[in-house]
């Protein structure tokens, strides 16, 4: 209990007290509504809602057919297709944006030039929704695949025997059974999209006319200094409310539980033979996946090799010098160090929270992951930019000055991703066999030794996965970094963001290429490790 209280106190001090401070900073609730309804704020709200709904629609539009084809048909290379369409979540959204800008900016985009000017324009709400939707595709694909896999095959066979054709069976039985999972995936896409900063900034601010969202608007207010800060706080409350409402609706939908699919694998599932449609369907699915995923990534690599921005002549490595510049090296070093420390802390703290086996503490530790990064960062900013003084034993005074240091950035990374460590540890603990630890105790091991030898090996795989995922997310983090980065310093995300939006897209593409290579290498490594673990 003591350990649980210490952890809870730390969480409250670093997340919930700052949120309260943010509320205080936003002034009286009575003034909120009038600010929310001001024309500028209203257009930001509309921007957020439209782009988030659009992103959910895009993810459903592509995600549902992909999930069905992968699980239920004899599509060529279904397993590899699944790997490809779940790739986007490992790559930061603003990288997809950079790829699509290279492809579809209205002046010199690759697609623009191929199809003809005036046909495609990635800037604006449509582009934001499209890029966010494709980069959140895995949320819909994975939850829908899981639902398809849990449908007992006899549910569909019973419909056939009742007189329904294959198509009627699909629309009246299969589709209603997977709908809750697909909608829940879409709700997560909405929350992800409404909290996203990089994509709407890169595609909205320079759009004609500029299209703001709540996150980019908040950022703009923060840049204005003390006066803007309170308006930013009010908009943050609005953004937080949106996330809470959507997550609550999603939870209510799940709990309504009209449809409860049995746990575990569905039995007797039939794989539909596409017959003579197999070749065209496979080609169409692979071509779509390639267009959504391979094309923008390829565009980033090619942009880094272009001799001149916008011209597709001979390729060169001359831009790659940027990687060796001191500013880049410093940003890479800081990002790697911060991400590494954050990932290890997420793993250790997540394990510590799960080991207390207290649901309320797990819920408390889960909560920050639902807070939009912009809101969390702003809360930390308004709380810790001032020096905090503590006096202990009436004598010793501590001065806590986190503002404008990397510590605040590290803190934000850890609390935002803590849920990853908590969930993976607690799931693994629930599945772990406690008798292995008990056997160690009876063989003469102490409590700690029994945990290390008997229980921990069963958690290692899940924990390593969470650490790696946290590392990958943090090494390229942008949304919180852009608000919390100490003046005059860079992390990879902010450097890329600045190069892309103001200075030098080619240099940005080079750094993005390097980052992509690292991410892909890490994914391959993880695949190899998990496959070896499976083989054992």
């Amino acid at each position, binding site marked *: 209990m003591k350990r649980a209280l210490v952890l809870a106190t730390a969480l409250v001090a670093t997340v919930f007290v700052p949120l309260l401070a943010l509320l205080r900073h936003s002034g009286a609730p009575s003034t909120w509504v009038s600010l929310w309804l001001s024309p500028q704020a209203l257009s930001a709200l509309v921007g957020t809602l439209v782009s988030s709904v659009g992103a959910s629609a895009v993810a459903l539009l592509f995600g549902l057919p992909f999930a069905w084809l992968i699980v239920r048909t004899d599509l060529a290379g279904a397993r590899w297709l699944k790997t490809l369409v779940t790739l986007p979540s490992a790559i930061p959204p603003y990288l997809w944006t950079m790829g699509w800008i290279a492809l579809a900016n209205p002046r010199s985009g690759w697609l623009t030039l191929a199809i003809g000017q005036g046909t495609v324009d990635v800037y604006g709400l449509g582009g934001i929704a499209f890029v966010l939707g494709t980069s959140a595709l895995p949320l819909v694909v994975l939850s829908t695949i899981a639902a398809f896999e849990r449908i*007992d095959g006899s*549910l569909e*066979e019973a419909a056939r025997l009742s007189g329904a054709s294959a198509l009627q069976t699909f629309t009246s*039985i299969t589709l*209603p*059974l997977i709908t809750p999972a697909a909608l829940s995936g879409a709700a997560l896409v909405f929350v992800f999209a409404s909290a996203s900063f990089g994509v709407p900034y890169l595609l909205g601010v320079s759009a004609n006319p500029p299209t703001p969202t709540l996150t980019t608007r908040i950022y703009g207010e923060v840049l204005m200094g003390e006066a803007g800060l309170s308006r930013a706080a009010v908009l943050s409350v609005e953004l937080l409310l949106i996330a809470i409402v959507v997550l609550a609706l999603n939870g209510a939908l799940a709990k309504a539980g*009209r449809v409860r699919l049995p746990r575990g694998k569905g039995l007797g599932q039939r794989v539909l033979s596409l017959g003579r449609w197999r070749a065209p369907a496979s080609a169409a699915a692979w071509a779509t996946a390639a267009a959504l995923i391979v094309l923008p990534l390829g565009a980033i690599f090619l942009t880094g090799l272009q001799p001149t921005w916008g011209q597709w002549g001979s390729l060169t490595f001359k831009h790659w010098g940027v990687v060796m510049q001191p500013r880049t090296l410093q940003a890479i070093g800081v990002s790697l160090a911060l991400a590494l420390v954050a990932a290890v802390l997420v793993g250790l703290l997540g394990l510590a929270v799960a080991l207390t086996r207290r649901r309320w503490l797990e819920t408390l530790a889960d909560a920050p992951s639902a807070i939009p990064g912009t809101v969390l960062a702003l809360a930390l900013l308004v709380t810790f930019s001032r020096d905090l003084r503590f006096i202990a034993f009436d004598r010793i005074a501590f001065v806590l000055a986190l503002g404008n240091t990397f510590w605040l950035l590290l803190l934000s990374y850890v609390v935002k991703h803590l849920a990853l460590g908590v969930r993976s540890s607690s799931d693994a603990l629930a599945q772990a066999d406690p008798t292995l630890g008990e056997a160690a105790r009876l063989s003469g091991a102490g409590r700690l030794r029994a945990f290390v030898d008997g229980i921990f090996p069963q958690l290692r795989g899940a924990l390593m996965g969470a650490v790696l995922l946290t590392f990958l997310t943090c090494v390229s983090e942008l949304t919180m970094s852009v608000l919390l980065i100490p003046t005059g310093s860079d992390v990879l995300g902010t450097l890329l963001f600045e190069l892309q939006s103001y200075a030098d897209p080619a240099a940005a593409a080079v750094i993005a290429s390097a980052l992509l290579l690292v991410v892909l290498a890490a994914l391959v490594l993880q695949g190899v490790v998990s496959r070896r673990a499976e083989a054992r």
Partner: protein
Amino acid sequence: MAAVELQEIEKSFGPTAVVKRLSLEVKEHELLALLGPSGCGKTTTLRMIAGLERPDRGVVRLGGRVVDDQASFTQPEQRGLGMVFQSYAVWPHKSVFENVAYPLQLRREGGLEAKVMEALGWVRLAALAQRRPHELSGGQLQRVALARALVGRPKVLLLDEPLSNLDVALREELRGEIASLRAKLGTTMVLVTHDQGEALALADRVAVMNKGVIEQLAAPAEIYGEPATPFVAGFVGGANVLEGVARDGRFFIEGHAFELPGGAKAENGPLTIAVRSEDVAIGAGGPELALQAKLFLGSTTEYRFALGPQVLRATGPAKDALQPSQPAAVSFRAARLFGAR
């Protein structure tokens, strides 16, 4: 005209032949049980009747009409069948009423509500019509499945292990319900089961299947009383199936010589016999065997004797002084002889 006719059906999954040249006729209004251990091909046979699997070779006819040969195939929804699945397969997103109404809705039949409520009445679920599946017990779910399969008055009802997910008491109750529904509606039924008691109690005829072939097809009394093969004797009657050698009217097994009962004649050579446990006599002459275990079963006691690597089971009265590891004289009161395997 047969309600269902299978003609030389063959089916393999990959390299494994699951059903081998199987022929079978189910008469109108008959309840035929396909009985066998798991993996014997009985469920696959049922699914080929339903059109959920296609045979590699052979012809399936329903009411004299070809529904599957190599040239033509009638989709399952066009065969006019009803089916009850082991896993209930009650749709979780529809209420009890909606589940049962579904087959009628597809046919756009009038008088939907009355028909659905009648079907629910058959299985005594009318009061639960508006419930959701997750509010029902296993037995109630299987009754919903039964009503749904029967509501469209199918010519043939297929039952795939309908009772095996239920506990013993519910199983007996639902078994009685299937029997009375059959009496009421006269529907032809094909029942797949691995439970010999279920097959013998419900069926007009039983087809005992093993390794993809029908070993015996006969009325329950005949299956039980006159098993055609050692497998049927062992699987249905629970008999001891013993393999040994016949010589001069005696049966030799593991160095013991038993008298063949009732002056049964056997040619000299390898011989398989089936002896029910109640036909094994203890203490009435015969070779002495060591008692391996003694299992008190309530009304009777089962004795297990070691016969080399084989085990001989005998049933005796509940009160008996026989002690473990004590030798006892064992003989056979009756046996079925099958000749060499």
